[in-house]
């Protein structure tokens, strides 16, 4: 058991390290940009420690430098509202104890959520969440310190293609879950809605709009319920009372947990 955990931890660590390395570089660019925009070092560092949300931090620096602090708060919060549904999905994955949930919540990011939800519910998911959460937090903050100290000497993360690393990593973590038909339909529809809405809506809203795709399974269920004699039509896997429960969305992910790389 112990060795099984150790090997799995090793795999998760290696995967998290790849994203962590990119986060050090982007964190450094945040530190450098913030200091160049006139933010004092203490403010730059406390943003990375206390706020710990890359997108909102870059946005806030821009809006503070432009002289609109209120807009910085509102835009940043709009951008981060997605963490609430992440928390709902993660729930007990942070741990059974209250302090674990209170502390773990601070480490919740898109990447930590994706790493955790890619693992089967239970102890494995919890370990993945904490490993990713703590390591990425350290990587982001180490990067910020580096950027504050090195300033303009920090290179452009765009030249390293790091802006492609994050969406590719997220997509790779999501892919196994998309084997489930319902998840696939909702996720792809949501992604399309968000992309189409991006030129029209302020940052943050397009991503939240993806939740509108949840009407698909809800409507499918209505239709299934309305069908005579419960002749359950195409509802994926007949996910009703028979095998509902925390495990059912995980079956497809267990396959990935066995590590697709071999």
């Amino acid at each position, binding site marked *: 058991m112990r060795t099984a955990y150790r090997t799995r931890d090793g795999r998760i660590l*290696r995967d998290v390290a790849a994203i962590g390395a*990119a986060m050090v570089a982007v964190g450094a660019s945040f530190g450098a940009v913030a200091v160049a925009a006139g933010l004092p070092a203490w*403010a730059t560092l406390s*943003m990375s420690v206390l706020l*710990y949300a890359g997108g*909102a931090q870059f946005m*806030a620096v821009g809006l503070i430098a432009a002289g609109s602090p209120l807009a*910085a*708060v509102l835009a*940043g*919060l709009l951008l*981060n509202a997605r*963490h*609430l549904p*992440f*928390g*709902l999905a*993660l*729930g007990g994955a942070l741990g059974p104890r209250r302090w674990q*949930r*209170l502390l*773990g*919540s601070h480490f*919740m990011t898109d990447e930590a959520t994706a790493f955790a*939800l890619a693992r089967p519910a239970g102890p494995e998911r919890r370990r993945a969440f904490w490993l990713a959460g703590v390591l990425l937090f350290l990587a982001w903050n180490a990067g910020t310190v580096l950027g504050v100290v090195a300033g303009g000497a920090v290179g452009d993360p765009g030249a*390293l*293609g790091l*802006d*492609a*690393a*994050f*969406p*590719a990593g*997220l*997509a*790779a973590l*999501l892919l196994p879950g998309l084997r489930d038909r*319902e*998840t696939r339909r*909702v*996720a792809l*529809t*949501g992604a399309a809605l*968000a*992309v189409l809405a*991006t*030129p029209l809506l302020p940052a943050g809203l*397009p*991503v939240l*709009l*993806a*939740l509108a*795709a*949840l009407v698909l399974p809800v409507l499918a*269920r209505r239709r299934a319920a309305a069908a005579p004699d419960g002749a359950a039509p195409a509802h994926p896997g007949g*996910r009703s009372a028979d095998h*509902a429960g925390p495990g*059912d*969305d995980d079956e497809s992910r267990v396959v990935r947990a066995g590590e697709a*790389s071999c």
Partner: protein
Amino acid sequence: MLIAVILALATGTYGFRVAGVLLRDRLELPEWSRHLLPVAAAALLAALAATAALTEAGGFAGYARPAGVLVGLVLAWRRAPFVLIVVAAAGTTALLRLLGVA
């Protein structure tokens, strides 16, 4: 002023994060809708990945970035190791930019 902005952002963001985690236990959701929570998270993450891959400041991100992400996707599809997916995506984009593709 600056400290107020940072604290407001930090408190509000932590509020979103912790609210979902703590609500999960108290929310009386019907059984059939509980399994929609991870589906909702998948939709949000897919939307993040798609918008991050294709857009920048409300417009098209240029060709280099989506090309890199596409390479990553193909590798993920072929079940390549995660590290390789991330490195190949970044490498492709970096190389294209080096060659002058925006």
